[in-house]
């Protein structure tokens, strides 16, 4: 059944109420921010309560979608409204409920809830506890806004809000200069991608006149608009559709830490560990992948049967190279969170490659499973850091498997899931990663990505085993003894571990429920899809590769517990390669001497111009006006005031003279009067005589 649109008008349907899912956490964040004084209990209750409410609504929405799917419909249920009307141009916003959004909603709210609960333990002693939950709720709300947006504009707004909360939370311990710098770096680096995203969005609006994804046939992701975009040529042999796709992908690459915009993600680990788990591993960085999945019709527009498009090819190559590149760097890192950060970048590369080669379902499946096991790994790392009194260097840990048994058990599950460990226990990462490898094997353009991804899998197994060996095996090399974390932290770990083990079952090749649900096909159980030889070979390959990685790493690092000062085993073997990997292939340094130096130079020029040229002009004008004012003051005080004062003086003198006439004596007046009458009489007599 082809996808069909449904514009919902009934006010009581779940789709109509979908806006509540992001709105409630945002309102909770607002209320927390407005509390008159830090109230820990209120803040936590609001945050956890609002996310639980969102989870409940998301589950209702999910069940609703599953029911619709079981009825045989694959629908985009949308609610759209006009936001701004300028002349004949409407800017419309809206939200959409489809399988993609439903899956993502449940994943985000569920992982958020667990991490919120975990944070109540992890952040217990922090003085800015209230702020933390305020930001976290705001993040959850904005992320859910990204998920349900049916308009590229609304998505972009929430996208930027997510970026803001990411900035706030990376810089949560802003007293540390490194945290403040990391927050700025994250904000600016993602902004580079967002500029392209914005350009793509404006272009799309100019071409199609709408930013809605689905709107009953007139949305920008629907055939009519796509045909128009395909007919419009852009530069370099691309159609408008291809060019816009690439611009949007640049935004997604910034957010999802794809090469070359990955540099911010490892530094983002300066934030509190629950933040790293929620934002920089499970959800926000996956927003880029989700965005590509959301605009997939545009990405795919113009593809021939079984073929691919320029945009998807770019996505694939960027994803595959990021996967290998980040995995290589992760091998030589010693900070427990940085290893996980590079592994996140690498896994995001897998997702992008999966989207590029296999379609929405393949990439999204890895996104969902990854969210669970990566959140698990980060929370486990947080538990380790918490237990070791804020020690993050894996070389100063060791032997924790007996001190922190629960953390060890759950961490191992997360690690095996991340490695994609297959036989005999099938972890969720195995199925999702195999889906991507399968897609890569059948990709029509080139086979290189397949080999790159297999190499990535080998490296993943290698560096994860190295980390686990350092942290949990050998003997304790730290200062103070480690202790197990409280139940409020370990219970979320256990729940996540359960899902990291089992979640893969919804997307095994035998029962492809996940992709069927997303693509609107019916799912049926068919074991034959596993046992056909080609797939068995693939499964075998990946299992062998993973076991090879684990064994290799274990032979080098297992139970050795080297001293922190000793050089690494690999460093002795190949010091040059090790130094390059240790320094993250000098990408940061490269940016330092190119982009940053370039902007630094411009900043210097601008500063010089400002101080010397414009400042001089301003000073000269100021001096001119000051001189003019001095002249005016001189004229005023000496000419104008002088003449006025002189006039006043003369008047006063004249008045004084005249006042002497007024003696106040009645008889004097009478005498003057009499004299005047006599003079008058004399004049009259004199004149009448003649």
């Amino acid at each position: 059944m082809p996808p069909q649109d449904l514009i919902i008008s009934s006010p009581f349907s779940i789709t109509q109420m979908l806006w509540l899912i992001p709105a409630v956490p945002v309102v909770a964040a607002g209320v927390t921010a407005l509390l008159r004084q830090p109230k820990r209990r209120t803040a936590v209750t609001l945050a956890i309560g609002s996310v639980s409410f969102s989870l409940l609504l998301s589950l209702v929405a999910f069940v609703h979608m599953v029911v619709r799917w079981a009825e045989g419909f694959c629908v985009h249920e949308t609610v759209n409204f006009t936001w701004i009307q300028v002349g004949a141009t409407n800017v419309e916003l809206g939200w959409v409920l489809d399988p993609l959004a439903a899956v993502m909603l449940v994943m985000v709210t569920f992982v958020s809830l667990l991490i919120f609960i975990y944070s109540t333990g992890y952040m217990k002693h922090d003085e800015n506890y209230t702020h933390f939950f305020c930001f976290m709720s705001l993040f959850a709300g904005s992320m859910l806004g990204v998920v349900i947006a049916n308009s590229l504009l609304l998505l972009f707004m929430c996208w930027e809000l997510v970026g803001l909360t990411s900035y706030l939370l990376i810089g949560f311990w802003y007293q540390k200069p490194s945290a403040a710098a990391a927050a700025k770096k994250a904000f600016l680096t993602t902004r580079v991608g967002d500029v392209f995203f914005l350009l793509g969005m404006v272009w799309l609006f100019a071409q199609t006149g709408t930013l809605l994804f689905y709107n009953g046939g007139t949305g920008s992701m629907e055939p009519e608009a796509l045909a128009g975009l395909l007919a419009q040529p852009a530069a370099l042999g691309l159609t408008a559709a291809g060019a816009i796709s690439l611009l949007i992908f640049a935004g997604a690459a910034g957010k999802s830490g794809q090469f070359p915009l990955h540099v911010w993600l490892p530094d983002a680990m300066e934030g509190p560990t629950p933040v790293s788990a929620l934002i920089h591993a499970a959800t926000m960085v996956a927003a880029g992948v989700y965005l590509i999945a959301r605009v997939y019709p545009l990405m795919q527009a113009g593809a021939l049967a079984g073929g691919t498009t320029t945009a998807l090819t770019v996505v694939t190559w960027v994803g595959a190279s990021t996967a290998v590149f980040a995995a290589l760097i992760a091998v030589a890192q010693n900070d427990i969170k940085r290893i996980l950060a590079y592994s996140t970048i690498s896994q995001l590369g897998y997702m992008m490659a999966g989207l590029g080669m296999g379609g929405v379902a393949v990439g999204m499946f890895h996104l969902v499973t990854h969210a669970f096991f990566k959140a698990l790994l980060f929370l486990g790392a947080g538990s380790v850091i918490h237990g070791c009194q804020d020690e993050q260097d894996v070389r100063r840990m060791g032997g924790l498997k007996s001190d922190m048994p629960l953390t060890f058990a759950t961490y191992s599950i997360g690690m095996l899931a991340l490695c994609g460990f297959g036989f005999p226990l099938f972890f969720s990462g195995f199925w999702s990663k195999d889906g991507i490898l399968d897609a890569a094997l059948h990709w029509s353009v080139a086979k290189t990505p397949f080999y790159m991804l297999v190499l990535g899998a080998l490296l993943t197994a290698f560096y994860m085993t190295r980390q686990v060996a350092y942290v949990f095996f050998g003997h304790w090399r730290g200062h103070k003894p480690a202790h197990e974390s409280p139940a409020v932290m370990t219970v979320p770990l256990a729940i996540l571990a359960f899902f990291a083990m089992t979640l893969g079952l919804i997307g095994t090749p035998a029962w492809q429920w996940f992709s069927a649900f997303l693509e609107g096909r019916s799912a049926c159980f068919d074991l034959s899809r596993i046992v056909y030889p080609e797939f068995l070979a693939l499964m075998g390959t990946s299992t062998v590769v993973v076991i090879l990685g684990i064994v290799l790493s274990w032979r080098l690092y297992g139970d050795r517990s080297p001293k922190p000062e000793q050089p690494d085993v690999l460093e002795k073997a190949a010091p040059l390669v090790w130094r390059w990997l240790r320094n993250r292939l000098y990408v940061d340094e490269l940016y330092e001497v190119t982009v940053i130096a370039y902007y630094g130079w411009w900043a210097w020029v601008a500063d010089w111009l400002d101080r010397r040229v414009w400042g001089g002009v301003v000073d000269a004008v100021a001096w001119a006006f000051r001189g003019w004012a001095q002249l005016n003051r001189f004229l005023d005080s000496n000419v104008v005031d002088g003449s006025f004062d002189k006039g006043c003086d003369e008047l006063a003198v004249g008045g004084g003279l005249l006042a002497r006439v007024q003696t106040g004596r009645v008889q004097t007046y009478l005498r003057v009067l009499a004299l005047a009458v006599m003079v008058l009489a004399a004049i009259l007599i004199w004149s009448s005589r003649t």
Partner: protein
Amino acid sequence: MTPLASYLLVAALLFSIGLAGALTRRSAILVLIGIELMLNAANLNLIAFWRYGPHPEALTGMMFAIFSIAVAAAEAAVGLGLVIHIHRYAHTTNLDAMNRMKG
């Protein structure tokens, strides 16, 4: 019959005595008396001109004089009232002391 000029001479003399009194005396009451004398000189003139005028049968001059005497009485009453008030205020009737309106 006494000629008009004699009346006028008497009136002029009377006026001059009144004016001299009003100008030279220090006491406010004596100044008032001088003013009364001047008014009466004017009244005498009025009567004289009436009697020697072209229509002595009409009582116009008489009426004018009576009117003037009534006005003089009112003036004397107001003047004396003022003098009493000034005396109460300054305990003197000396006009030279009353120079509060000096400019």
